[in-house]
């Protein structure tokens, strides 16, 4: 009987990897800012404002931006920090 164990390979190295890492940090800060904006907008708004079409559109836009930023982070994480191959070991 053997157990198949899948591990991530070593991190990528080089300029592109460093740039990707810095971009990930910046985008993560942007994601935190967008998240804070959405939460603050929802919690602090008066009901009369929160029920307007404009409010819903604004929150929807912020969520779309957040989704875009998260997708960019995921892309950079996979392409910038992970090796192309996974290391598979058998024990």
């Amino acid at each position, binding site marked *: 009987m053997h157990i198949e164990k899948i591990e*991530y390979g070593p*991190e990528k190295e080089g300029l592109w*990897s460093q740039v990707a*890492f810095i971009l*990930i*940090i910046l985008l*993560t800060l942007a*994601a*935190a800012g967008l*998240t*804070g904006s*959405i*939460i603050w907008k*929802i*919690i602090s708004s008066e*009901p*009369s404002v929160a*029920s*307007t079409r404009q409010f819903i559109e604004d929150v929807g836009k912020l969520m779309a931006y957040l989704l875009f930023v998260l997708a960019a*982070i995921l892309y950079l*994480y996979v392409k910038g*920090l*992970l090796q192309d191959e996974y290391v598979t070991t058998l024990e």
Partner: protein
Amino acid sequence: MADKIIITLTRRKLTEILIGLVALFFAGGTVAAVLKYLWPQSGAKGESSEVKIALVDEVPTGTAKKFMFNGKASVLLHMPAGFRAFGSVCTHLGCIAYWKPDENIVFCPCHLGKFDPNTGAVISGPPPSPLPAIDIIVKEGAVYALKWKDPDYVKSISFYAGAA
């Protein structure tokens, strides 16, 4: 000799931690928003609370503004005779009625109920009773909602359960 604890923090691990923190932040905010929905500000309830609806300038004569009062959709109307405010949940089946300036009525689109914008009385259509009026006050250039004009009447309307 003291033991040293060495923690290796890779860029990959740091990224995962940061994303995890953002996810936690998002989840916390979602929970906070849900809690705020379930337990709204106590100041919005109660018969003597003042709820600012709008600045006088925001609602010129012949226009209206939607607002929430005691958790119910309501409408402020600026008629030639002055400001009027009503709960805008239709007394027929609970749809939201709105100001229709071209016909000078408060109109419920579901079953074509029409209400008098000055009194809230039913003009035509299936609504069985008038829209509940809200006492308002104009001071310092703004309009405030005070309380339901007739709390007993509001309690008798099923769609206003808990509003008075």
